Structures are given as structure tokens and as C-alpha cells.
């Protein structure tokens, strides 16, 4: 004890204390978050359902009806499942900002717990796709197979580089950059808005895991050719060439024909 108190004024004591403090905080945080994750994996409790119903009546019933059976302004939610709610509410698409060609991504209106309670309520109304298995979201699948599945099933709307693309009459397929693995999985499972449904019978959970792995891989790797100009293909590349390429050609033409001083 005496040795310790003597070293207390050592110049490195503050640093050592800081490191110990940080390690402890980090450890506690890790334990706390993994405990949260474990909770999310379990089924919904009865209180989740009743809290969810209150939130639903206050925020969603105007369009979707008091019992979520749908109305003229919104579809029925019976049987859409927890996955659909987690996707729509978790990406901020619901509650909708305004009527339009499609609901767009925006900052979420509900926190994680509230989203979970809403999902619990809607899931209690009828059987539907449940929240995905965390093991399928780890991004440890086969990226090559995922790429093949992506090009066959997804690339025509979402673009081969997952940069998104236009549909008819103001609708569009959004870019997939920065979308969480869970939301990608839920979108395939439930087919939000105009996206077709890719149920487990169509693309197996392992296939979905491969697709997510592929998307994470191309996002991490970036473009092999340098600046990808948004990955939008001929539009952005053509604009660049017309402006920069022609600009350089014009500059050289002027220089070639000018007189030196």
C-alpha cells in the first residue's frame, strides 16, 4: 500500500488512471449493449403489445384505422408482421411526411423501444414476417453468390452498384448505401411500397445473408477505378466528360492556335 501511495505522484499516474477508467467504461458498455441485444431476440411481452396499441392509436390510426384494418388513406396492417413495422418506422418512412409518389427515408420519429412496441402490436394482429434472425445479419455470408443474386433480383431497380435508380411517375428505388443489414433483410422479406416481395421461398435466408454480405463488401471496398461519380453510370460520367473532357480539349485548341508572346 505504501508503494502505491508513493507512486501516486508519478507523472504517468494520471495517464494510467485514465486508461483504467476508459477500459472500465468500455467493458460496462459492452456488457450493457449485449444484454440489450439478448432482450431484442426474445419474443414480445404483453406490455409491449398494449404500449404499442396506445402508440398506434395516437400516431397511426388516422390513416390505418383504429384496428389497423385500413382505410381509404392507408392499407390494412393485419398480417404485415413485425418486420414490416420495424422497416417502415425504423427508417422513418412511417409516419409519412405527406402523400406523394412514395414515402421517403427521413429521421425516425420513434425510438427503438417505441418501434419495438408498435411492431409487437401489429404482429399480434395476424401472422406475418417476424424480425430477422440476428445470425443472418452478420455479413459473414458468401459475397460472390450474393452478388449473383443481387444482379438477378435487385440490380435492375437498385443499380448494379446499389446506387438506386428511377421508376415510373416520380417513384424511385433508393440507394442502399448506409442502410443497416436488418432493414435490407426486412425490405426483401416484406416488399415495402412498390418493391416486390422476396420471401424466404424465393430467396432463402442464407441467400439474403449473402446479398447483405455482398452489399457490405462493395460498400467497404469502394470503386476499383477511382472516383465512381455516384455509381450512376452514363448520366454522371457523361456529364463529367462533356464538361471536363470538352473543357480540356477546348483549352488545348485555344493554346494550339494562339501566338506566343
Amino acid at each position, binding site marked *: 500500500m505504501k508503494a502505491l501511495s508513493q507512486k501516486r505522484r508519478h507523472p504517468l499516474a494520471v495517464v494510467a488512471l485514465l486508461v483504467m477508467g476508459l477500459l472500465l467504461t468500455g467493458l460496462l458498455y459492452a456488457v450493457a449493449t449485449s444484454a440489450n441485444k439478448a432482450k431484442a431476440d426474445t419474443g414480445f411481452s404483453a406490455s409491449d403489445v398494449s404500449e404499442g396499441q396506445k402508440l398506434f392509436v395516437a400516431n397511426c390510426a388516422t390513416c390505418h384505422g383504429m384496428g389497423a384494418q385500413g382505410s381509404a388513406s392507408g392499407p390494412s396492417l393485419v398480417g404485415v408482421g413485425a418486420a414490416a413495422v420495424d422497416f417502415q418506422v425504423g427508417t422513418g418512412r412511417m409516419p409519412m411526411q405527406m402523400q406523394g409518389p412514395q414515402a421517403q427515408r427521413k429521421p425516425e420519429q420513434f425510438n427503438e423501444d417505441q418501434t419495438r412496441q408498435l411492431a409487437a402490436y401489429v404482429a399480434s394482429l395476424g401472422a406475418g414476417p417476424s424480425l430477422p434472425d440476428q445470425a443472418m445479419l452478420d455479413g459473414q455470408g458468401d459475397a460472390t453468390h450474393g452478388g449473383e*443474386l443481387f444482379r438477378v433480383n435487385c440490380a435492375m431497380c437498385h443499380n448494379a452498384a446499389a446506387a438506386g435508380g428511377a*421508376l415510373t411517375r416520380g*417513384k424511385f428505388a433508393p440507394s442502399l448505401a448506409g442502410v443497416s443489414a436488418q432493414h435490407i433483410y426486412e425490405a426483401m422479406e416484406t416488399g415495402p411500397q*412498390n418493391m*416486390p416481395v*422476396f*420471401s424466404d*421461398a424465393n430467396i432463402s435466408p442464407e441467400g439474403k445473408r449473402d446479398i447483405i454480405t455482398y452489399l457490405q463488401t462493395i460498400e467497404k*471496398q469502394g470503386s476499383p477505378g477511382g472516383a465512381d461519380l455516384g455509381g450512376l453510370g452514363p448520366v454522371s460520367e457523361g456529364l463529367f466528360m462533356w464538361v471536363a473532357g470538352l473543357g480540356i480539349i477546348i483549352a488545348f485548341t485555344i493554346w494550339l492556335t494562339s501566338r*506566343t508572346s
Partner: protein
Amino acid sequence: MGNPSDGAPQQGGTVATAGQAGGQFEDPGLPPHRPRLADTDPRAAKRAERQVTWLFIISVIGTIVFLVSYFAIDLGPTSTVDAIRTQNILLGLSTAFAMLGIGTGIVHWAKALMPDHEVSEARHELRSEKDREAAVKIVDDIIEETGIKRRPLIRNTLIGALALAPLPALAVFGDLGPNANDKLRHTMWAPNAQTGKKVRLTRDPDGTPIKAADVTIGSAYHVIPEGLNDLHEGKLNEKAKSVVLLMRLNPQDLHVSPGRENWGYNGIVAYSKICTHVGCPVALYEQQTHHLLCPCHQSTFDLTNECQVIFGPASRPLPQLPIEVDSEGYLVATSDFHEPVGPSYWEREYS
């Protein structure tokens, strides 16, 4: 005029004028020659020389960087995308500097240091009667010496021989390939000619068969015919003709024309994915509006009305593949497409 590089005009020139009445425009002649900085100031000349030298050295450096980045960056099976990206950028930039260095160096050299005296050259005569008469005489001589006018038998047989000579080419080129019309009219969906076994619809790319019960409402399946993955030859050609999009919607949303009542199954319908405009894959399916959009030229097809064109340059609806369910519950094609898939071609209307 003694020194050719002093920049003075070699000929006192006037611009040639043709067919103009004098006095309408004054011949402006050549502008006075202005000497360049490098012509008068030896230091400027020296500076320009150094600049040209540096441009050539930049080219040398560019070539060396190209070779180094080509050989030093090893792209083995374990290399990352980062290495490919670095090499791509270095190869591109070094080639650009290697070429631009030589090009700009030569141009700068010519502009700043080489003699820049103006030269004017009178236009030569466009047509002379003497040349014309000589040409006419050559033709007359040929007619005279061959005696083609005096010997009509030779002339007529020559004309006959020349007219017939190209005919073998017609026969040979005409047989270069099989009749394309026949190939475009048939796909792998036709039931087996001997056994009558109908072709199952399978998932692209895995080739696993699809149960009707697996196709939930709102689903879209990208479909290839069973056995396509087993082909060793012509696989892509067969795939390009036979790819199909399989979708399920509420049966009451579908408007089915007479004769097509049995082409779908409980709201499950299959349509060719090849656009009837120029053959792009039409696979952008909006499951709420039931529109199919072609990404190339925005042709839009209405799935509820048997894929009638509702927008864009396509002129015909997408061909529908008649489907039914076999004894094991899998989806099979009842028959081949009833019309050729894809864009129009000359013999399309004649079988």
C-alpha cells in the same frame, strides 16, 4: 531575307482574289510580322528551351512511373481492391503525362522557338483544257484499239458474263447460317417433343423449381427454364430468349382476354422479360401499380392488362408464357410462347 528564322515574310504576298471586280474590296494583304519575345531576347529563348526540355522530362518520368506501377504493384489472387485502384490511377495518370509531355513539348517548341514566318501560296489552276483533251484522247484510243464498236458479239458476251458472275456469291452468302426466323420463334419452354414432358419454371440463377404455393402475393421471381444450367453450348443465347418474370397479384386485378383464361394460375402470371422494343430486360416491377418498366427507354407495360404498352417506344405487349401446376405442385410451362419474344424483325409476321 538572309536569315530564314528572322521571321520576315519570304514572299511579299497578296491574297489571291478570283472573279471579283476590282475596287469592291481592298486586298488587305498580310498583317505586319511581329517578332516573338524569343526572337529578340536570348534569355527568353533560353527559358523557352528549358520549358520544352522539362516537358520532355515529364514524359520520361511518366513512362518510368507507368512501368514501375505495372510491375511493382502485384495483382495476385490475394490482392485487394485498393491495390487495383492504386494501379489503375497510376497507370492512367502516367500514360497521360507520358503522351502529353511529348505533345505539349513539341507544340511549345514549334510555337516559341522554330521560325514563324508567314508563307502565302497562290492557288493552282483548277481545270486546264489541255489536261481535259489528253484524258478524252486516252478514252478514244481505248475504244478504237479494242474495236468494241466493230465487234458487237464480243461486247454482248462480255456484258452477259459480267451480269452472271455475282450469282454464286448470292447462293453462298445466302446459306451462311440457319434461318433466323426459326430460331427466334422457339425457346426452351416448348414441351419435350418426344415425351411431352412440360418444362418446369426454375429460379434464376440457382435453377431450383418453384412451387405455386411459394409465390406469395406481391412476389416477383426471376425465372429460367429447367435444364438451362445444364447446357454446355449456347447457354446465353437460350437464356436471352427464355428469361421470364413470374409475379402473383390479386386474381380480380387481372383483366384476362378470351382464350387466355388458363394461361395463369390463381393470379400467378409469367411474362417474357425481353422488351419488345430493342430487347432490354424489362424487370423493374412495381408491385402496387403493377407496372413493368424497361430501364433502357422507359417503355412501361401494364401487368393487369396483359402487359399492354402504356408508355414509351415499345409497340407490342410482352409475350405471356402460359403456365400451369404439375402433379407435384411445381409450376410448368403449358407450351412455348405463342409469338416470338423480343424486338420486331422482318419475317416476324410470317411463320
